[in-house]
C-alpha cells in the first residue's frame, strides 16, 4: 500500500506533527496488547468486586430502578444492524433505525400524554436542563424555579447549565410534599417552574395547580419524572397541563448500568415543537411514493444552525431508546399498567411492613413505588447494618441532600422484582437493628 501511495513509511504521514511532540516508540507507562482471554479475566475480576442488584434483597431507587427487562429486548438491541450503525443520516439504508425512532416518539408522547416527543436525550437530568433552557427561549425570560422535590442531581445539572447562560435559578427548599410551593413562587419574570412527580421522596403530586399558576403568569410548567413506569398509573404530565415533560426512561428496557447509559425522554406541546432540542424523526415518502421516515426539522440543530442551534446535542441515546421502545412494544399499554400496579403494590407492602416496626415513620404521604422513612438512628449506620444482613436498604437522604438535615431519613424503592421474601427480610433486619 505504501508503494501505491508513494511513501516510504507511515512516519511521512505524520510530518506535520511538530518535531518535539512526536513520540518515539510506544507511549510510556502503558502495557502492550493482551489476548481476549486475559482481558476477559481482568474485567471479570473487576466485575466480581461489585454486588449486583439481583444478588439479594435490593431497595435502592432515587432516580434509577431495578426492573425486569425481557430477554427479547437485549436480543433486539444486539442485532448488528441496530448496534453497529450510525445516526440515520442516509435514510434509504436506515429505515430500521428511523421507523423505531418514530415508534419511540409516538410511545413517549402517548405515555406522557403530550403532543410530541423527540428521539431521546442523554438522560433525565440533561433533559431537565435542556427543558429549562428551552423555556427561557420560548418565553424570552431569565428565571427558572425548581421544586424542592426535584431530584438534587437534576437540580444541579439544570442550575449549572442555566447559570452558564446567565439565567437565574431559584431552588425551593427541599420538601417531601410541597404541592403549592411552585404556584406560590412563580412570578412575571419566570420562564418556567420545574416540578417532579413522583418526586425524589416518592411523593406523587398533581401539578395542575402549578401549571395554572405558571400559565397565568406567562410561564411554562416543566414536569419531570425519574421513574417511567409510573406513567402507567400516575397522572401523566399532559393531564396536568405541562408544557414540557422530561424524564428518565431507564426503567423501561434498560439496566441499572451504574448510572449510564440511560435514555432521556423529552416531550412537549405541539406549538413548542420547533423550539425543541435533539433529533426528531418524521414521516415522509420516497421517490416511489412509499411511506418512509427521515430525521427532520434539523434546522433547529447544531450541524445546520451552529451557534444558533437549540442545543449542542447530536449523539444521543439511540440504542437505549430502541431498548425502551422494544420493551414498551412488548408491554403495550396493558402491560405497562400491569407492571405499574405490581410496583405500587410491592411498595405498599414494603411500607406496611416497615411501618409496623416501632420507631419507623413513613414520611411520604402519597407514593408510587418509592418513599422516604425516618429511623430513630443515623441512616448511614442503619444502612451499613442492613448491608451486613444482606439487605441493600436504600439511599440515605443525606447523600442527595448533604445540607438538608436529613441524617435519619432513608429513601427506598420496591419494584416488580421485589418479592414478599425480600420485604420480609428487610423488615426483619430493620427490626433487629432499631
Amino acid at each position: 500500500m505504501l508503494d501505491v501511495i508513494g511513501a516510504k513509511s507511515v512516519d511521512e504521514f505524520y510530518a506535520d506533527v511538530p518535531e518535539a511532540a512526536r513520540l518515539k516508540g510506544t507511549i510510556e507507562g502503558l502495557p502492550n496488547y493482551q489476548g481476549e482471554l486475559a482481558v476477559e479475566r481482568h474485567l471479570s475480576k473487576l466485575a466480581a468486586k461489585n454486588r449486583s442488584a439481583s444478588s439479594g434483597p435490593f431497595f435502592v431507587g432515587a432516580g434509577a430502578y431495578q426492573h425486569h427487562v425481557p430477554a427479547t429486548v437485549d436480543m433486539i438491541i444486539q442485532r448488528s444492524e441496530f448496534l453497529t450503525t450510525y445516526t440515520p443520516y442516509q435514510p434509504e439504508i436506515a429505515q430500521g433505525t428511523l421507523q423505531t425512532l418514530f415508534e419511540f416518539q409516538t410511545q413517549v408522547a402517548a405515555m406522557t400524554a403530550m403532543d410530541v416527543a423527540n428521539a431521546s436525550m442523554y438522560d433525565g437530568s440533561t433533559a431537565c436542563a435542556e427543558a429549562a433552557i428551552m423555556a427561557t427561549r420560548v418565553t424570552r425570560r431569565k428565571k427558572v424555579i425548581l421544586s424542592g422535590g426535584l431530584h438534587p442531581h437534576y437540580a444541579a445539572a439544570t442550575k449549572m447549565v442555566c447559570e452558564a447562560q446567565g439565567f437565574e435559578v431559584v431552588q425551593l427548599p427541599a420538601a417531601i410534599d410541597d404541592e403549592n410551593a411552585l404556584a406560590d413562587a412563580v412570578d412575571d419574570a419566570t420562564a418556567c417552574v420545574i416540578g417532579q412527580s413522583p418526586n425524589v421522596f416518592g411523593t406523587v403530586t398533581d401539578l395542575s395547580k402549578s401549571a395554572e399558576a405558571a400559565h397565568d403568569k406567562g410561564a411554562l410548567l416543566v414536569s419531570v419524572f425519574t421513574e417511567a413506569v409510573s406513567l402507567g398509573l400516575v397522572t401523566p404530565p399532559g393531564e396536568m397541563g405541562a408544557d414540557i415533560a422530561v424524564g428518565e426512561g431507564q426503567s423501561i428496557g434498560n439496566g441499572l448500568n451504574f448510572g449510564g447509559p440511560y435514555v432521556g425522554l423529552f416531550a412537549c406541546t405541539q406549538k413548542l415543537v420547533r423550539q425543541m432540542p435533539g433529533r426528531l424523526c418524521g414521516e415522509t415518502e420516497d421517490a416511489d411514493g412509499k411511506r418512509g421516515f427521515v430525521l427532520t426539522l434539523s434546522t433547529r440543530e447544531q450541524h445546520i444552525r451552529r451557534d444558533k442551534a437549540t442545543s449542542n446535542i447530536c449523539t444521543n441515546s439511540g440504542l437505549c431508546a430502541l431498548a425502551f421502545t422494544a420493551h414498551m412494544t412488548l408491554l403495550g399499554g396493558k402491560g405497562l399498567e400491569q407492571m405499574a400496579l405490581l410496583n405500587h403494590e410491592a411498595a405498599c407492602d414494603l411500607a406496611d411492613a416497615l411501618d409496623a416496626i416501632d420507631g419507623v415513620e413513613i414520611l411520604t404521604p402519597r407514593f408510587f413505588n418509592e418513599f422516604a422513612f425516618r429511623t430513630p438512628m443515623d441512616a448511614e449506620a442503619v444502612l451499613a447494618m442492613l448491608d451486613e444482613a444482606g439487605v441493600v436498604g436504600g439511599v440515605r437522604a443525606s447523600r442527595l441532600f448533604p445540607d438538608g438535615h436529613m441524617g435519619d431519613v432513608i429513601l427506598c424503592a420496591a419494584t416488580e422484582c421485589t418479592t414478599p421474601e425480600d420485604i420480609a427480610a428487610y423488615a426483619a433486619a430493620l427490626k433487629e437493628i432499631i
Partner: protein
Amino acid sequence: QAEGLIFEVGTPDTTGVDLPKPKNRTGRLGGVARKKGTGLPGLSEPQAVRHYMRLSQKNYAIDLGLFPLGSCTMKHNPRLNEKLARLPGFADIHPLQPQATVQGALELIDELAAWLKTLTGMPAVAMSPKAGAHGEFCGMMAIRQALIARGEGETRKRVLVPASAHGTNPATAVQCGFVVDEIKANEIGRVNMEQLREKLQTSDDIAGIMLTNPNTCGLFESDIREIADLIHEAGGYFYCDGANFNAIVGRVRPGDLGVDAMHINLHKTFSTPHGGGGPGSGPTVLSEALAPYAPVPFVVKDEDGVFRLVEDMEGDASESFGRMVAFHGQMGMFVRALTYILSHGADGLKQASEDAVLNANYIQSRLKSVMTPAFDGYCMHEALFSDAFTAEGIETIDIAKSLIDEGYHPMTMYFPLVVHGAMLIEPTESESKAELDRFCDSLESIARRAAQGDETLKGAPYLAPMRRLDETKAARKPVLKWVEPNADSVAAE
C-alpha cells in the same frame, strides 16, 4: 417489503410480557391516578421479534460492510466489548448503592481514566460527559470557571472557532455563555495564522479557541504549537475537539501540543458501538490549569487503596464547576472502551492509528486521478475530496446515493463547509486492503460516470430498501408520531 408500524400491527389488549397478575390496589396513590390509558398496543413476543428483525434488515451497519463516514470513525466493534459490558457486576449495579459494594466499578473508572490521561499526556480527566458534544460542554465550562476564578468571567467572552469546525463547537460555546468569532482556513486547509494573530492582537476579551486536530479537512494543524502559545499568551485557553483522535493515538499526545481540554469520543476512537445514534461517551481530559474545575462526581483512590466517589462540591471538588448529569457517566461505555484499550495495548493502539492513516492515504492515492482531492499532500485518517471533478448537474449527494447501490454506506457529504461539495472519507483501520480496493473500484466507477454527467446517478439509490426520501416534505408539515387514521373524521362524526 413494507413493515407496518407497531400501532398498525398490535392490539391494545395484547401484552407480550409475562408478569404476575396485580391485585389492582392503588391504596397509597392518593388519587393522583392516570385518567386515560396510553392507548398503546402491545405485541406478542413472536410478533415483536419479527417486527424488529425485519426492520433491522433495512439498516446498513459496520457489521455488514465498510462505513466510510468522515469524522465519525466507524470502526469494527468487537463483541468482547458487548459480552463484558453485560457482566452482572457492571450491568446490574445501582449508581447510588453503597460505595463499598461497587469498588470494582470505581476501580474500572479509575483504570480507564489512567489510560486516557496517559494517552493524551494530560493530568486530569472528567469522566461524566455523555457524548462528544457533552464533553465539549464540559471543557468549555471548565474554561469558563477558570476565567471566573481569575475574575475575568465577565470580560473574556469571545471564543475563536474555525469555519471548518463541527457544528457542535459554536453551539457549545454559546451554551456556555460565550460569543463565537469565526476564523478562516488558509489555502492548505489549516488555520489562517495571519487572521488568528490579528484577532488575538486586537482585544483582551479572548476566552479561548476551539480547534479540531487533526482537523475536519483530515489534516494535522502544523502550526498547532504556535496556536496554543498564541492563545495562552492572549490569556485564553485551548479547547481541542477530539473527534479525530483516532489518527494520532500513540503517536502524539495532545498534552504536548498545549491543549487545555479535549473530549474523547469513546464511541469513535475506542470502538463502543454507535447504536444508531448513541449512546456515546465523551470523557474530557484537562490541563493542570483547568483540572481544579472538573465537574463532580469523580473517583479518587485513597491511600488505603479504597476508591471513593467525590460527589459534593467541597474538599477535592471545592472549585468544581458543578454537576453535568445524574450519576457517574456512561459506565456501560467505559467497560467497552477499556476492553478495547486493554485488547490493543499501547502498541496496538498506535498500530491502529497508523493503519487508519495508511488506509486513508491509500484511498486518497487510488482516487486522486478520478476525483479532486481538496488539498495536496498526505492526509491523516480521512481523505477529503471536492466535487470539482463532477459534470454540471451531478452533485455530491448523487455520488453518495450511488454508493448505496454498490453496497456501501456513503461517505460524509457537504462537510466540512469550507470545501465545495465536500466528500470526506474515513475508512478506519478495520479494513483490509482487499476491501479498500473493492471500495475504490466502486467509487472510481461512480466518479467516472459523474465526470461524464451520467444522469442515472441522480436517481440513485435503486437497490436500497427505499428510493430517495423527500426530506422537504417531512419538514414542511412535520408528522412526528403515528395518529390513528381518520381519528379526526371519526371524532367529527
